[in-house]
């Protein structure tokens, strides 16, 4: 139903030449996944799909296609990234046209894989269930037990500021009281926190998939790539890994929509969102600001107000 409507809308936009390009999701070769797809003709809209495996934040592609008028398929979190990018005046000439889809929360493919023995060859959603098949097994799982933690704690499933909205707006509630990963992290002592952080980052390859998957990481030259001056070494020493991960997270402060695309992109299953979500929480507590909710509110870390909290200055 949603998928059909999505295809119709995309087809219409392309036929009327309101956009040059629609970026959305399509089925591809792996189960529990979709792939980003770039559609330029009305007929091509048939390739679009919508399901709980649409895990990428497609706003990351806007930088690459900033010369085109793009129709972008967005979930609630992705729309927030676009609003944050607009606040940073990223696309003054061609602001993207948002095709918002009310999100049903996404399925964590890594969690599903851990729940079965053997390779998953086929997976489909059926109502609240997830039917998963392999060579020697076939199970149905409760979809809600396999959601990404960023999705479980999400309250903004309806895309804000969407030009076209597909699906009925939903109530702004989360499935859990606090972000499960942040909660778990906060319960630790500071020594335990450092140990956890070090253990996670020790698996880092510095492939920068987390950076590239993120719409907010668009610096012309990332500090890790800058050699004049050289901010950081290129090897895998714990201090360099810590440096990269801390700076990456801090650079997201007040800018991160909490979509979790960074964590999903990591081939080494490094947990990342506990840091960025914690920073989001701090910004909310200190400045009453949530990324990508108020399209006019200035980002707190880019502005100064005499009323800002200043307790940290001793």
């Amino acid at each position: 139903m949603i998928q059909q409507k999505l295809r119709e809308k995309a087809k219409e936009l392309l036929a009327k030449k309101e956009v040059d390009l629609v970026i959305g999701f399509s089925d591809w070769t792996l189960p529990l996944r979709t792939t980003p797809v770039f559609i330029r003709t009305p007929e091509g809209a048939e390739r679009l799909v919508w399901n709980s495996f649409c895990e990428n934040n497609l706003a990351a592609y806007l930088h690459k296609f900033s010369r085109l008028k793009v129709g972008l398929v967005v979930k609630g979190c992705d729309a927030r990234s676009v609003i944050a990018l607009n606040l940073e005046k990223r696309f003054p000439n061609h602001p993207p046209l948002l095709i918002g889809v009310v999100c049903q929360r996404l399925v964590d493919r890594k969690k599903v894989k851990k729940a079965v023995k053997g390779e998953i060859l086929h997976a489909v959603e059926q109502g609240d269930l997830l039917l998963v098949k392999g060579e020697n097994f076939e199970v149905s799982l409760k979809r809600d037990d396999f959601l990404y933690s960023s999705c479980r704690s999400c309250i903004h499933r309806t895309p804000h500021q969407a030009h076209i909205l597909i699906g009925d707006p939903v109530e702004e509630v989360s499935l859990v009281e606090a972000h499960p990963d942040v909660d778990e992290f906060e319960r630790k002592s500071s020594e335990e926190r450092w140990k956890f952080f070090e253990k996670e980052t020790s698996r880092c390859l510095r492939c920068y998939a987390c950076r590239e998957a993120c719409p907010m990481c668009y610096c012309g030259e990332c500090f890790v790539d800058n050699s004049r001056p050289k901010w950081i070494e290129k090897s895998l020493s714990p201090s360099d890994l810590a440096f990269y991960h801390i700076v990456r997270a801090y650079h997201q402060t007040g800018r991160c929509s909490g979509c979790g695309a960074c964590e999903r992109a990591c081939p080494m299953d490094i947990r990342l969102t506990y840091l960025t979500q914690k920073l989001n929480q701090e910004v909310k507590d200190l400045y009453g600001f949530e990324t990508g909710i108020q399209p006019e509110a200035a980002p707190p870390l880019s502005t100064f107000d005499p009323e800002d909290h200043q307790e940290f200055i001793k």
Partner: protein
Amino acid sequence: MKLKLDKKDVENFLKGLIEGYDLYAPAQLTEGVSVFKKIDRPEEVNLTQPVTQKPAKEAFFPQSEVMFRYEEAGNRGQVISAEQTKRDRILLGARPCDIEAISIIEKVFTGEDYTDVYFLEKRKKTTIIGLGCNHPLSTCFCSSTGGGPFHRAGSDLFFTDLGEAYFVELLTEKGTAFRENKFFKEADPKDLALLKELEDKAFQKVDGSVPVEGIEKRLDLMIESPFWDSIHEKCIGCGVCTFLCPTCHCFDMTDEAVNLKGQRVRNWDSCLFPIYSLETSGHNPRPTGRERTRQRLMHKFNYFPKNFGRVACVGCGRCILYCPVQFDIREALLYASARRAKGLKGKSR
């Protein structure tokens, strides 16, 4: 002679290897994430993951390696050699694709024009114990690239998991040196029959239809093809596919120095990073994802076969499995071979 190693003896067998050698084998860093690392305790070894995240090339070509150190000595500089590879090594549990890849990298590091001592020292001192793939994944296509789930070339010994035991084959001189290992027993004819059965079953599972043959010639005509304009679109330009690739071998050298002391380190590099081809002048001959994606595929399927006589892909499927946006190299090969990619779409394979 056909041998086997009972599973109950594996722990002691590994203990023996750890005492006598530097042992490299797959170990889990966290649930579902395995890499090849130096093993200190037998229980670290995990031979169950069909495809580890990082490939076995790390045992010879680590992601980060100190080449030499330097420091001030009097009013001059002094160069200090990096640690040598002293002990003999064992690489255990590498799959046929990874072992094939090591022989591919070897062509580069031990070529006519130059010899890489860092790689060669480790290679010479290493005995490779391959492990057959009873359960290849749907993303595996080693049979399409000249290998197979039980391809034994490059292994000195070859293990196959029979359930209660490993079937053991001694294949080379280095391998035969293990004939007297006290944990190896003579195998029964029924073990041999089981091996054959597993081998046949695995072979049928692996996709042998990915069009690799003749790809070099087709790509010769494609350097300016519009194919590259579309194929790169979804690539986000991270280094997952190249870092996890068992045949990718590009590196970058940097000096890490503080005051008058430092070290020269080489680190894996990726042709998909913009700074990979950035020149000192500021000019970048591969300015966009189009040129960089083209380089990745051309190197594997055109330049490498031209230089070394075979494609630099072993069909391990890591780049497909771990790509954040599902760039599927099989799709690229299908397109390049002018066959329609439709056959792939929507199928779980």
